[in-house]
């Protein structure tokens, strides 16, 4: 059972204040948001930082709900993904990981790189462009969520795609929200 202690130590050393793994639905999204909000409130975090963290969390969680690829392994199908929040002295990190089919990576990577190449005004223009010119696809338009995460955090989106098996990679995303600007 040493893994319990190992997991605990990892959480401590990585300064994680919340970790959730499992199926993601609108209901779990609401629960996680409520839990994180209580945590932010009780730690007396400034309202601007709190709002930005909340913003980024919603988009990250709803991205998982709407876009995570179903992992098919023989008979087993799952949507298992992971969501984490880290709290450092100078920032919060909102992190997520979910399976993605390899054929979907190139398109996602292109979107993320495009967003990371834009400055504040470029992001604003892209945001307006997307809400003006697209109707909500049945899956709900993830790129708008990424644009918003980049705008609210004011930082580049960090991402990677470690391989899971022949068909899937794990899409890891990290968004940093600076603390205490007020």
């Amino acid at each position, binding site marked *: 059972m040493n893994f319990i202690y190992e997991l605990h130590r990892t959480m401590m050393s990585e300064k994680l204040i919340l970790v959730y793994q499992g199926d993601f639905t609108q209901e779990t999204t*609401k629960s996680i948001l409520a839990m994180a909000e209580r945590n932010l409130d009780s730690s007396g975090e400034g309202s601007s930082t709190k709002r930005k963290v*909340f913003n980024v969390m*919603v*988009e990250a969680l709803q991205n998982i709900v709407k876009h995570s690829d179903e992992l098919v392994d023989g008979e087993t199908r799952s949507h298992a993904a992971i969501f984490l929040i880290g709290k450092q002295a100078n920032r919060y990190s909102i992190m997520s990981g979910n399976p993605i089919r390899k054929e979907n990576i190139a398109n996602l990577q292109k979107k993320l790189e495009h967003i990371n190449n834009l400055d504040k005004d470029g992001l604003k223009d892209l945001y*307006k462009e997307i809400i003006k010119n697209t109707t909500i696809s049945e899956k709900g*338009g993830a790129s*708008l*969520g990424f644009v*918003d995460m980049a705008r609210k955090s004011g930082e580049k989106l960090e991402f990677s795609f470690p391989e899971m098996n022949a068909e899937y990679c794990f899409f890891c995303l990290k968004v940093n929200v600076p603390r205490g600007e007020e």
Partner: protein
Amino acid sequence: MEILNLEGAEDTPKIILDKKNGIFEISGRSLPEDSAEFYRPVLEWIGNYGGDPNPSTEFVFKLEYFNTASSKLILDVLSALEDIKGMKIMWYYHEDDEDMEEAGQEFSELVEIPFEFKTY
């Protein structure tokens, strides 16, 4: 005309659309699971209202938070209001919420309706 009255919840805004009493307000948080589905009755109501509107309408947005999926639907709501004569948007934001102020300004750049900005 019937009143549209939706109780707010932790992930959906409170909405009152009441032609007779001149109350038109969307407030609270908007992060529904299916934003298109959630805003459908609102868009329908506005469509009907546009056929026989009051001489002037002050439509209040007093949102604490909305997600990106809702932002497209808010733009749809604004676009529906755009064609109604005597329309004015009252965009409320918390006094220290620059992001909500900026969001209102962006919407005002996307539609041809007068916006008035107010803090609460």
